[in-house]
């Protein structure tokens, strides 16, 4: 059996060599942090602190606003400076708590549990919930929701996503190389919570060091398999990963739990371990700051709420003032209009591109129907037709071509020789019609 993969996809230059060999180091302590009350998919949090209040590191500052939500915690100790709306990486204004860092790193009391293995699934789940853990691959979906499937949907497989198929990003890779035992412990905790016997770790085969480290960490574990995946974007997309690892296909508009699978990111597993073992809430994460436009690419351990401008300064600054700064990976991330926005629980990387690398799409050509996008689309759509319909304003027509099955991975736009902004046109169409 060869290395597994899915149909479609692309091979962008992976550019991981810029930061892959660099150990995770703590970022320089920020002067203040801006902690948004909405860092996850779902209901925003309600602030629990008042201005001028002294808070400790790890203290809860926002309580969940519903079932699909996750609490947020102070990532530094110090005084609350403001509670107001601040812009996030997508340019939206969200209520945020600003804390001045007193740089004493005074922790709130954490519940240390050396015997965490003796805890019941429900007790472990409560710890994941209290720690405010969300999916750290980018979507930031509250993890506890994924760990609470309804009774009629039994789960038999848990997949840890270590594909990290976005170019440039190396945070998951470093974590797998440096902390494999903790990740596998986290996986075992997740399996215990869900009551599943089968655990998989999927890692792209260009990360041989990570595969080696994780394989060593699972030695003697009969329930956990480590699979090398073909290096291809978007190998780490949830639906693709499930198909590659289990052969099951998640139907349109269905969830992984409908095929008895739950997928978590390796970073999430690490956070789950820290929550169960040390009672640590999710207040810091690994962020890869990289790209041709940054002087010194790094893999940083960053406190949630640190401003991106601070991280760029920490990495020697931008080589040129003109350029593009992306929050997330270059295929699905957001270009930032301002650098004074905070890192959130879902920020996997900051990629700085120079002006030369950016393909301007102000002028694009008509579709020549070459079919490259159809071959590249992992969802089996016809992006060419979607873009033509959207361009002409025939949004209903786009729906007939399964508009809402697109998850905007960007493969079509990457391969298009006419440089058509296909994803942009698809988003336009999605906003103009109801699913």
């Amino acid at each position: 059996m060869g290395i597994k993969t899915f149909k479609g996809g692309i091979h962008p230059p992976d550019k991981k060599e810029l930061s892959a060999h660099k150990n995770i180091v703590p970022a320089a302590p920020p002067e203040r942090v801006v902690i948004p009350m909405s860092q996850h998919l779902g209901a925003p949090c309600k602030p629990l602190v008042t201005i001028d209040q002294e808070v400790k590191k790890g203290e809860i500052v926002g309580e969940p606003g519903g079932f699909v939500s996750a609490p947020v915690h102070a990532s530094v100790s110090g005084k609350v400076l403001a509670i107001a709306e601040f812009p996030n990486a997508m340019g939206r204004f969200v209520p945020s708590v600003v804390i001045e860092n007193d740089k004493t790193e005074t922790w709130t009391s954490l519940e240390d549990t050396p015997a965490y293995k003796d805890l019941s699934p429900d007790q472990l789940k409560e710890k994941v919930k209290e720690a405010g853990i969300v999916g750290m691959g980018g979507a930031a979906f509250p993890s506890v929701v994924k760990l609470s499937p309804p009774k009629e949907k039994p789960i038999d497989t848990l997949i840890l996503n270590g594909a990290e198929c976005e170019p440039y990003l190396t945070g998951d890779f470093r974590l797998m190389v440096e902390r494999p035992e903790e990740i596998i412990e986290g996986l075992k905790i997740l399996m215990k919570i869900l009551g599943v016997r089968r655990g998989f770790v999927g890692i792209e085969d260009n990360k041989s060091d990570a595969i080696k480290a994780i394989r060593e960490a699972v030695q003697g574990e009969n329930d956990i398999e480590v699979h090398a995946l073909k290096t291809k974007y978007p190998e780490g997309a949830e639906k693709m990963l499930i198909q590659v690892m289990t052969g099951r296909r998640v139907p349109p508009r269905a969830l992984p739990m409908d095929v008895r699978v739950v997928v978590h990111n390796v970073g999430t597993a690490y956070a789950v371990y820290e929550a169960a073992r040390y009672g640590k809430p999710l207040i810091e994460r690994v962020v890869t700051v990289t790209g041709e436009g940054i002087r010194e690419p790094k893999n940083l351990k960053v406190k949630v709420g640190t401003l991106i401008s601070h991280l760029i300064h920490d990495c020697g600054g931008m080589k040129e003032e003109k350029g593009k700064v992306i929050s997330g990976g270059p295929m699905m991330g957001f270009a930032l209009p301002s650098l004074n926005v905070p890192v959130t629980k879902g920020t996997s990387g900051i990629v700085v591109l120079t002006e030369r690398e950016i393909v301007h799409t102000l002028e694009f050509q008509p579709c020549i129907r070459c079919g490259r996008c159809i071959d590249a689309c992992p969802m089996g759509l016809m992006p060419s037709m979607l873009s033509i319909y959207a361009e002409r304003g025939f949004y209903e027509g786009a729906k007939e071509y399964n508009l809402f099955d697109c998850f905007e991975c960007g493969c079509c736009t990457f391969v298009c020789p006419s440089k058509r902004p296909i994803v942009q046109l698809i988003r336009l169409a999605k906003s103009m019609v109801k699913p």
Partner: protein
Amino acid sequence: MEVTEKEKQLIVSISPHMKSDETTSRIMWTVSASLLPATTMGAYFFGPRATLTVALCIIAAVFSEYAFQRILKKHGTVNDGSAFLTGLLLGMNLPPSVPFYIPLIGSSVAIIIAKQMFGGIGCNIFNPALIGRAFLLISFPKFLTIWHAPTAAFVKIDAITAATPLGILKEEGAARLIEVFGDKINLYMQLLIGHRAGSIGETSALALLVGAAFLLYRGYISWHIPVSYLGTVAVIAWIFGEKGALFAGDPIMHLLSGGLILGACFMATDYVTAPSVRKGQILFGIGCGFLTMLIRLKGGYPEGVMFSILIMNCFTPLIDRGFKAKVFGVQKKKKE
């Protein structure tokens, strides 16, 4: 949101932020380059007059596009190479010594009527070069059916007229064709090299296949249309190729003669006018092959490649719709 002066230098656009370096113009120029071996062979066998015909086609095509867009104040697309390619393909599809006004008329019809009137690159329904040729064949049948025996290069232009292999096959049968070329092996050899009467760029099967292999290797065309097209022709030629007997035809004779290889590898594969879904491309190729053989064996013309591709072009939108790609995760409906 407050944005500092420095931050105004930040470029903001929607993902993805990486793109391949493939461009439409690179595709067009590469396809043109892949036709170079066949064009060179045509120039060698049919002399400077043939070269001039091809050059005139290209110049007229590029000028037509430039003039049309200039006059209508449209965005110029001459540099993308598509007009050059259309002119080149039309030239390769003409007999060596047509009067000089023939390329001019053919190219302007191809570019202005078949391409620009439909909205320019990407919007045309029919292959422009083939529309140009069809227009010429119907309007000037006399010039479009005078063929010359190949001569060494740089000889007098008034070469001896000769029948094409397909013409002989149609009028006098396979036995006579073999007789003209001596024996079967020699016939195949001459057809492969291109030492035969025919359109300028269609004769050398070998040079065309070299170009097609290059495009396949580079991923600029896929195997689906050429293989299904050529395969269908071969099967039908084998079954019905010989008059009065089934399963006695010579498929190789049919594959190597006429404009089949040029059509199957370079014109039926035109992105704009062929289906873009792979399964649909196979149906398209089979349709082209069927119609080609229908015309060759039963129709009034000795060759059917041009009309078969043009007819199948009509079905392209329908085929693309019918073979709409299958969405990930959609389960096959079980038969009750």
